[in-house]
């Protein structure tokens, strides 16, 4: 038995250094972020300058889903900053898992038009809207033209049966259902008008893509010809030379998908986090973000020539053609709407 004891003992000894020591009370930022290019951007364009200016270390942690990590922690989060889609941040806020800020605490907010602020009914802000992308119709350029999708309703046309892809219910509910409802005369609160359109689009869908990578591959290989998708993903793909995919904004407009930098409730170093939030929309950082296909929301930023050319329109035009719904209201109903879209998808045959 000696050998077994010895092995067990050494295993425990070896794992001792892994036990996290009691955290020091120093200021620091621990940020949860999606992986790949986004994490790299936050580390280089946002984290490093912040540390250089404020002498506060920033650690960017790659997670499959920062929002889920905060929700799972149920009030004891490991991260004092996360990046999240606005509806996800609002969703956490409805559960009391996000720190609220008085607009005065984040002075740089004044550079962002109020329609893009994510506020709760009490007027408190739920994070710093750092940038946005838009939701439009991505398509395979060898099989479709932008004119094929002049309207969102075109996605429901019978010719596209089995050729589209749509996203998972968790994103269908806040994004696709909302835009369908607007197209059919409803709002982000009254989504009933949008249900038939979404059902028809779902009927045409061959698959539900489960990650950016998944749809990029499907579009590029011609498995599907079109899908409602994110402008950033298409722009990044095109910049690497893959010109087989492009994106268009139908005439009713797309969605402004803003992203917020939020502070999980109960995390440490709230003040450092507030400063991190405030600094994040400094113009230089916004331009760096634009290089990664994330567009600025602030009005005091002018994009350099080469970047504006990519979009084929000025930044004001992009903002103008797309609609920013009340994400707080959308997030309030998210669970019911998710089950609704699951039913819609099941019924659409």
């Amino acid at each position, binding site marked *: *038995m000696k*050998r*077994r004891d010895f*092995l*067990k003992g050494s*295993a425990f000894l*070896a*794992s001792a250094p*892994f*036990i*996290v020591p009691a955290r020091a009370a120093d200021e620091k930022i*621990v940020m949860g972020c*999606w*992986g*790949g*290019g*986004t*994490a790299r951007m936050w580390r280089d364009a946002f984290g490093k300058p912040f540390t250089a200016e404020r002498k506060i270390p920033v*650690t960017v*942690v*790659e*997670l*499959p*889903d920062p929002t*889920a*990590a905060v929700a*799972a*922690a*149920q009030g*004891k989060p*490991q*991260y004092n900053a996360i990046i999240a889609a606005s509806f996800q941040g609002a969703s956490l806020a409805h559960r009391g898992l996000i720190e609220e800020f008085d607009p005065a605490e984040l002075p740089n907010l004044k550079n962002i038009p109020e329609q893009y602020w994510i506020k709760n009914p009490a007027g408190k802000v739920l994070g710093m809207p750092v940038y946005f992308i838009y939701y439009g119709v991505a398509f395979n350029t060898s099989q479709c033209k932008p004119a094929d999708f002049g309207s969102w309703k075109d996605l429901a046309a019978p010719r596209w049966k089995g050729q589209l892809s749509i996203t998972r219910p968790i994103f269908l509910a806040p994004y696709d259902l909302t835009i369908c409802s607007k197209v059919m005369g409803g709002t982000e609160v009254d989504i009933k008008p949008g249900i038939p359109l979404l059902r028809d689009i779902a009927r045409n869908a061959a698959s539900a893509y489960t*990650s*950016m*990578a*998944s749809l*990029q*591959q499907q579009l*590029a*290989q011609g498995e599907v010809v079109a899908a409602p998708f994110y402008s950033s993903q298409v722009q*990044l*793909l095109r910049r*690497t*030379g*893959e010109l087989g995919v492009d994106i268009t904004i139908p005439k009713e407009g797309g969605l402004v998908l803003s992203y917020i930098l939020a502070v999980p409730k109960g995390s440490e170093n709230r003040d450092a986090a507030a400063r991190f939030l405030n600094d994040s929309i400094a113009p230089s950082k916004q331009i760096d973000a634009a290089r990664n296909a994330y567009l600025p929301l602030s009005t005091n930023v002018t994009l350099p020539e080469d970047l504006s050319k990519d979009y084929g329109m000025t930044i004001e035009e992009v903002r103008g053609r797309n609609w920013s719904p009340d994400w707080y209201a959308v997030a309030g109903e998210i669970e019911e709407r998710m089950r609704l879209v699951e039913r819609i998808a099941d019924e659409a045959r």
Partner: protein
Amino acid sequence: MKTSPTVRIVAAALLIFLPAPLLIVIGASFSPGSILSFPPPGLSLRWYRTVLGEDDWIIAFATSAGIGVVAAVVTTLIALGAALALERAPPRIRSSAELLILAPLLFPHAALGIAFLSCLVTLRLNGSMLGVFISHLVLCAPFAYRPIALSLNQIDRSISEAAMILGASSRQAVTSVLIPMLRPGLSAALMFSFIISFDEVTVTMFLVGPEFTTLPVKIYSHLADSADPVVAAISTILIVMTSGIILILDRVVGLGIFVDIEEDARG
């Protein structure tokens, strides 16, 4: 005994089917483009250079491998002890204990992830490697226990009794006689545990912290954002490394799962 042609044909077909997706991944890793595509439009080592250049990937790999190896060894030892102990236990205790050990198999990993997180948060171990290690132990335990228990069931205990009659102490009977006879079960236990731990993503996703991450979690987070072939390059490296290690280990140490009981007992 010779095997019938039908068996050979089925076996051959399966031996092509099983590695098929891997061949795609290996092929795609040499693509010069930025999306996973097969056949690759050209050949390039660009993504391999990216992987080997970035420390993050190497560190994540080392973390996963380290946790995997230690978890496999510890789990196998615990499972061995448990199997030996339970063999002589009264049947009712034995079946309840077995049910507990096998319990993690019955829950989908997503549910287990949340459960582990709440436990670890209470123990203030969330985000620590020890926390991940412990949860991997629990997840691997059923996979280690089953082959060992099955092996134990099938061997001829009279051999170890004979050894004891011939003068061996009970400890010697176990180490020199019993354990070698259990080699298929022990090897299977080690292999399963390592694979389960190394590949684990759904539970581990919740338990990683700011200071470290595991390879599958890093791959998954990466794919949430970009589709570049860097994942294919990593996977190819893994394939080559793991198969290499298995073949080398077998030559040097003799993994046992590939050995007949009889050959072993005779010589």
